[in-house]
């Protein structure tokens, strides 16, 4: 299993998969955790308390502060799993203390909506 721990921690939750990359700055409402980018496949969905699975983050590095605001406003995902590491998501999860894993293609594709999992970003496992 190819799993890289970017931000350590453990979290339990239900998976929400995004098919497309996420631009946290502008794309997500930081007060509610609702996806407000009309062109995004998760439009209208709420990220709060989910295990958010998405390819990688895009857009301004200021998006890291949006992740922090989501956490501060208690509407952030409890963990994130990406296919590729990007500095915005890495910094954002780090300042917000949200566990973050980067996983290989096979593991990534095995993650499906509504699965209940435990993300162990200490050992680098998804159970």
């Amino acid at each position: 299993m190819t799993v890289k721990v970017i931000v350590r921690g453990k979290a339990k939750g239900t998976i929400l998969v995004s098919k497309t990359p996420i631009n946290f700055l502008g794309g997500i409402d930081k007060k509610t955790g609702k996806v407000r980018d009309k062109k995004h496949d998760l439009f209208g969905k709420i990220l709060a308390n989910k295990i958010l699975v998405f390819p990688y983050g895009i857009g301004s590095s200021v998006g890291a502060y949006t992740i922090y605001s989501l956490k501060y406003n208690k509407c952030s995902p409890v963990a994130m799993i990406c296919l590729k590491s990007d500095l915005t998501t890495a910094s954002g999860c780090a300042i917000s203390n949200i566990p973050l894993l980067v996983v290989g293609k096979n593991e990534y594709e095995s993650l499906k909506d509504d699965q209940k999992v435990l993300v162990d970003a200490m050992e680098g496992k998804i159970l």
Partner: protein
Amino acid sequence: MNLTKEEEEALDGKQGETLALAYRVLLAIGEATDADKLIPIEWAHLSGVNYNTIGDAGEEFLSHLSKDATFKVRTTVNPMGFDFDTVSKYSVDDEFIKKQESIKQSYEKMGAVPSFSCIPYEILELPKKNTHVSFAESNAAIYANSISGLKTNKEGAFSALASALTGKSPYSDLREDDNRLPNLTIRMKVEHRDELTYGLLGYFAGKVAGNSVSISGTRELDKRSCKSLCAGMGTSGRCGMFTIGESEGEKIDFDEKEMQKVQDELNTSESGDLITLGSPQLGLDEISDLSSMLKGKSFRKRCMIFCPRAIQGQVKKMGYDNEIRRAGGEILYDCCICLTPLVNKKDVDAVTTNSVKGAYYLKTSNEVDVNLKNLKQIIQEETK
């Protein structure tokens, strides 16, 4: 990445949440850039100071963080959105001023030197050669690596902030000597050279180069050209360092044709209704030059000149302030062209500047047109 026992403990929160946060950032960025350890740095220079760059979420974050965080090493900060001394003369809304004040206070509370400057290499005493620093401002990172003999990656706002809080940085990319060797040479083939030409060369280099690049066909650069080259390079790509001369590997030419392409991308107007000078901010030498060039002349239109607060005393004492103001120039401290709310499309259609970096941000953020001219041309054509 391997951490020492102490670093592990800090990461686990044994020294408080602020240090845990800072080490989480260093670990995350270290893992993402394949670093194998953290090393000490002596100076951090932070970006993310202008309210226009970090917004409400950034302002909130810094406000929370500053409640119990203290910087561990010398920490300087980038320009703000405006100069508090003169902001009332411009139309900046109260909300912006309030948020900017909060950001300023947060950084100062954590112990930042209130430099509000993008040219820390010009206004502060430099550490000895080969010292590792952590500079988030791109022109400053490139200048530090290429001219000041210091070592830094082209840091982001968070890695530099985490470095300021811990005095450490992931050991990767330009911190390793092997990665500092350029594998591409750009041959400067443009005959006429001034700071604008070098800014355009920098912008071109940033687009085509990796971490480090050689520039041949040029001798010693004067400070104005050098700053312009660093700023242009930092704007367009990830390149964090240049050396003068030819290196092994691929070679490409920067000729009139290539220069024209860059110029066409950034220059969108024949003229401007406002002149801006100072991205990077002008240092004392450049202000002294400008004041000499303006003897007996006055600007035909508004001209905003951006400087670091550190030189204000000298600018006044040497009489440059009087001379430039007599010529109709407005000197502003603590801010710069990039993302300033002082220039907006409601009031101006196009801005004349000699700054390639300024041009890029004026176009993309302030959404005004840009007329690029070198300083000599600006003085010749825009004064009477």
